[in-house]
C-alpha cells in the first residue's frame, strides 16, 4: 500500500496543528459556530443527533493491521468502544468530544490516516473494488489509479469549494464491486477494442439521494495517461456550471441531466483540449512510481488444494456453509479471499467493537499479510489467506461473531445509521435491519434465496443505497409516524439499475412481513434455482409482487 513521504507527513502534522488551533479558538469563543462549522466539516467532524461524529478516511478501503489497531485505540480511548464502517469504505465514530478531536487526528496521523475531505463540498474519498489486486476477474489493479486520484484531489485548490460534494469510484474488474454507475464520476478499467491496451470507460453524473440517476458514459475509452487531465476537465465544467443556487440541484448529475449528455460531453472535451498536454498528463515514470506501492506480495508457490481443508468441508456442515458463502477464489493458487461479515443479529450493520478491531488486526497479521479491506456493503475482507489456514481462521472468526455465512445474501443488509444517530434522518433504519435479520435467520432459507440484496435508508438522502438494492427500503416520516417505502429491482453492479417504488408505504410493524411476501413471490415464481431475485423481477415486472403486497 502507499507509504507517506516526508512531505505527506509534514502536510498532515501541519493540518492537525491548524485544527487544534481552530478548536482552541472555538472553545474560547474566538470563533463563532458559523465560522468554525466550515473548519470542522473540512476535518470530517459533524454535529449529529446525540453528539459529534468524526468520519475518518480509508483511502479506497485499504487498511494495514497497524491502522486497524489505531482505529480500535480511538474507539476505546475517545469514543464508546466501537466504530461504524460506512458505505464509502470509511469509518465513523459517533461520540467523540470536540476537545479530544485534535488528539484523535494526531493519533491518526501517526499511522498515515486523517479525516480530511470526508465532508464538505469537495472531492471525497475515492472508493474502489475491495478485491483490487487479488480478484480473478481483474483486468488491471485499480489501486494505483485511486492513489493518483487521491493525491491529485487532496487539497486541490481549484476544487475546494465545489457546488456540492463529489464522489469518485474506480473499478478494474469485469464485475463491478464498486458501484461505479452511481458515483459523480465512475471509472472502469477496460481493454481497448483495437489493442491490448487498458484505459477507462468514463461514467459521469451518477448518484443516489432524492434524484437517483445512473451515470452516463461520456467516454468509452480514455487512455490511462489522460486520467487526471480528463478528471480535471470534468471538474472544471462542473465547478463553472454546476448550480449553487439550489442545494437539491447542485450535484453533477443534475448538471449532466439539464445540459444534456451530448452537450456536456462537448464541454468536457473542449476543456480537455486546453489542458490535456499539461502537467497532469501521466508519464510512464509516474505509473511506475505509484505501481511500486502495489506490487504483489511474495506469494508462496502452493497447490490449490489441502487435505485438512477438504476433510473439514466434508465433515463439518457449518464450515462448509461459511466457505460457500464468505470465501472467494483468489488469483493466486492456494490462496483465498475471506469476507468478514459485519451483519450479525448482535450489532448494527457495519459496526465493530474495539476488541473486534484489535482481533481482526491480529488475524490479518497471522493469516493475511497484514492487510484488511473495507467494502461498500459495510463488511471487511482478508484478501490473502492460504487455503490451509481457513479452518483455523474460521474458528477464530466464529469466536468473534464475524463468521455469519451471509455475504451477498438476504441478511447482508446495508443500513445507514438512520434516526438512531443521524440529524438528517426521518426514520430509523437499524431496528428494521435487525428485525429482518431476526426473521430470516434460517440458513437453509437464506441459502435457497441465493443472491439478493436488501438496503435500508432512513431518509431521502439515501446513504443506505436503497435505490440500488434488489429490495430497497426507505424510511420516511408521515404525519409523525415512521413508515417504510419499498422499491424493487435496483442493482449496484455492472447491470446497474434504479429500483422502482412498488406502492404505498408500510408501517414499521408491517415492513418485515412485506419483505417476506416479496421473497415468497420470488421463490414461487422463479423458473429454476439459479434464477436470481433480480432475474425473476426483471422477467415478471412489478405486477405479481404488487398483487401480493396490496391485492
Amino acid at each position: 500500500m502507499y507509504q507517506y513521504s516526508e512531505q505527506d507527513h509534514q502536510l498532515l502534522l501541519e493540518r492537525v496543528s491548524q485544527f487544534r488551533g481552530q478548536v482552541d479558538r472555538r472553545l474560547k469563543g474566538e470563533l463563532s459556530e458559523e465560522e468554525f462549522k466550515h473548519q470542522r466539516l473540512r476535518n470530517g467532524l459533524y454535529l449529529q443527533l446525540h453528539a459529534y461524529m468524526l468520519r475518518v478516511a480509508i483511502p479506497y478501503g485499504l487498511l494495514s493491521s497497524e491502522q486497524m489497531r489505531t482505529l480500535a485505540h480511538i474507539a476505546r480511548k475517545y469514543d464508546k468502544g466501537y466504530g461504524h464502517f460506512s458505505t464509502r469504505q470509511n469509518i465513523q465514530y459517533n461520540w467523540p468530544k470536540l476537545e479530544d478531536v485534535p488528539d484523535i487526528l494526531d493519533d491518526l496521523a501517526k499511522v498515515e490516516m486523517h479525516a480530511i475531505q470526508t465532508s464538505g463540498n469537495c472531492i471525497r474519498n475515492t472508493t474502489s473494488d475491495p478485491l483490487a489486486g487479488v480478484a480473478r476477474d481483474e483486468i488491471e489493479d485499480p489501486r494505483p489509479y485511486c492513489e493518483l486520484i487521491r493525491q491529485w484531489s487532496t487539497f486541490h485548490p481549484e476544487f475546494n469549494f465545489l457546488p456540492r460534494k463529489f464522489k469518485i469510484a474506480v473499478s478494474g474488474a469485469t464485475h463491478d464491486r464498486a458501484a461505479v454507475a452511481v458515483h459523480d464520476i465512475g471509472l472502469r478499467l477496460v481493454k481497448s477494442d483495437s489493442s491490448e491496451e487498458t484505459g477507462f470507460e468514463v461514467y459521469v453524473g451518477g448518484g443516489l439521494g432524492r434524484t437517483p440517476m445512473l451515470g452516463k458514459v461520456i467516454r468509452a475509452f480514455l487512455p490511462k495517461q489522460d486520467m487526471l487531465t480528463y478528471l480535471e476537465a470534468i471538474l472544471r465544467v462542473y465547478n463553472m456550471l454546476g448550480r449553487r443556487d439550489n442545494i437539491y440541484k447542485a450535484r453533477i448529475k443534475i448538471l449532466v441531466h439539464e445540459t444534456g449528455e451530448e452537450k456536456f460531453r462537448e464541454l468536457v472535451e473542449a476543456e480537455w483540449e486546453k489542458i490535456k498536454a499539461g502537467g497532469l498528463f501521466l508519464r510512464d515514470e509516474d505509473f511506475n512510481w505509484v505501481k511500486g506501492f502495489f506490487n504483489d506480495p511474495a506469494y508462496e508457490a502452493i497447490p490449490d488444494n489441502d487435505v485438512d481443508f477438504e476433510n473439514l468441508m466434508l465433515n463439518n456442515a457449518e464450515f462448509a456453509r461459511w466457505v460457500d458463502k464468505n470465501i472467494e477464489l483468489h488469483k493466486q493458487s492456494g490462496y483465498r479471499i475471506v469476507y468478514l461479515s459485519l451483519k450479525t443479529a448482535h450489532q448494527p450493520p457495519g459496526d465493530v467493537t474495539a476488541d473486534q478491531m484489535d482481533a481482526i488486526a491480529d488475524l490479518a497479521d497471522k493469516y493475511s499479510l497484514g492487510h484488511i479491506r473495507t467494502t461498500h456493503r459495510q463488511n471487511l475482507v482478508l484478501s490473502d489467506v492460504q487455503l490451509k489456514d481457513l479452518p483455523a481462521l474460521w474458528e477464530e472468526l466464529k469466536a468473534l461473531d464475524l463468521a455469519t455465512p451471509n455475504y451477498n445474501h438476504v441478511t447482508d443488509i446495508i443500513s445507514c445509521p438512520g434516526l438512531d444517530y443521524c440529524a438528517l434522518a426521518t426514520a430509523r433504519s437499524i431496528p428494521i435491519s435487525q428485525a429482518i435479520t431476526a426473521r430470516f435467520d434460517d440458513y437453509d432459507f437464506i441459502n435457497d434465496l441465493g443472491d439478493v440484496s436488501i438496503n435500508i435508508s432512513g431518509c431521502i438522502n439515501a446513504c443506505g443505497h436503497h435505490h440500488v438494492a434488489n429490495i430497497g427500503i426507505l424510511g420516511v416520516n408521515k404525519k409523525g409516524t415512521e413508515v417504510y417505502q419499498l422499491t424493487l429491482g435496483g442493482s449496484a453492479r455492472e447491470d446497474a439499475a434504479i429500483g422502482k417504488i412498488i406502492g404505498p408505504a408500510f408501517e414499521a410493524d408491517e415492513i418485515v412481513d412485506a419483505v417476506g411476501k416479496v421473497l415468497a413471490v420470488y421463490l414461487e415464481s422463479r423458473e429454476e434455482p439459479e434464477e436470481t431475485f433480480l432475474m425473476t423481477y426483471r422477467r415478471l415486472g412489478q405486477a405479481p409482487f404488487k398483487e401480493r403486497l396490496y391485492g
Partner: protein
Amino acid sequence: MALQVYTASLLKEGLVAYLALENGQPSWTSDIHQATVSEEDTLDALKQAAEQSEQENIIVAPYAIDVLKTEDGIVAATKREQIRAEGPTIELPQDNLRESRQAA
C-alpha cells in the same frame, strides 16, 4: 398552547442538553425531566437564557421543542426528539455484551 422546552448540543461534548432556569439562573442538563417547561407564548425568558448560553459558548444551536406532560414526566412530542432525549433505540455494540450473549 403547546408546552415547550429549550434544547441544544453542549459545545465541548456535543451531547444533548436541556435548559433549566432556577431563579433566573440557567443551567443545562442531559435529563429532559429537569428542563424548565413553558407555554409557547411565554418562552421569552427561556429563549433569552438559551441565546445567552450560546454567546457564552456553553451550547450550540438552541431551539424550542414541543413536549407533553405525562405520568412519567416530560416527554418530547416527536420521535426525533424522543430519541435525542433517550438515546439510540438500539443496544450499542459492546465487547462484553457480545460475549455474554454468545455464552448464553
